[in-house]
């Protein structure tokens, strides 16, 4: 899992402050550049970061937008169902009342 590793979580925190190169990201860690690159590949595969096109620097960027949309959506979807289900109750009551009146068998 992309987020299970503390180094990868730290990398994401660093990227939340702005784009950074592999060298910049590696600085606080006592690990090799290839090790950092490996972590970045995992994060990239998980869609959590993207890499720039520039062959030499390839700055890393956090992909927070999809995540944020997900959270927004969840909130909206919950409100949508809550509202709809509350409408449903009054609508069904109305239908049943109409049905009783229509059949003329109201007590």
């Amino acid at each position, binding site marked *: 899992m992309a*987020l299970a590793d503390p180094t990868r979580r730290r990398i994401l925190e660093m990227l939340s402050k702005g784009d950074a190169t592999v060298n910049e990201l590696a600085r606080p860690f006592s690990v090799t550049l290839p090790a950092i690159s490996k972590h970045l590949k995992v994060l990239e595969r998980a869609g959590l970061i993207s890499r720039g096109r520039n062959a030499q620097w390839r700055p890393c960027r956090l992909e927070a937008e999809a*995540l944020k949309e997900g959270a927004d959506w969840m909130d909206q979807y919950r409100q949508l169902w*809550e509202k709809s289900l509350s409408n*449903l109750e009054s609508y069904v*009551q109305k239908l049943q009342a109409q049905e009783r009146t229509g059949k003329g068998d109201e007590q």
Partner: protein
Amino acid sequence: MSIAIEQSDTELTFTQVLDAPRELLFKVFSESEHVKQWWGPEGWMMPVCTIDFQPGGTWLYCIRNADGEEHWAKAVYREIVLPERIVFTDNMVDAGGSPIEGLPPKRVTVTFDDVAGKTRLRVHVQLESAADLKKLVDMGFARHFPETLQHLEQILDSVK
């Protein structure tokens, strides 16, 4: 009657007991003339609601507010068991019916349980990306994105 809401890291569940037979509720969920009357957010109309109620069939709908803003969605029925259960996958689409990228698809299971002539209605929503969202909250990552955290807090508060 009140609606109970439960939320875990991957699911959202609404439970409600309605004073109506489940056959009627099933009908109200499956026919567009009825769905149009109750489904949708506050202040939005449903100018388009076409339902092909069969496994593999689709429910295409459009909601529109007073400013003319429109959103389209397309659901596909996965399972239909009359009058007990309806399962569908729901996705936001563009006006041409193509899925909008980045928005999570969800699987919705609606169950109708008979409780002495009344109906216990349960709407269960599964969100694939919710597990990742939850993990981010757990590790404190969201504090760097105040607005995201705020949304998540609202969700979590409201379901306590």
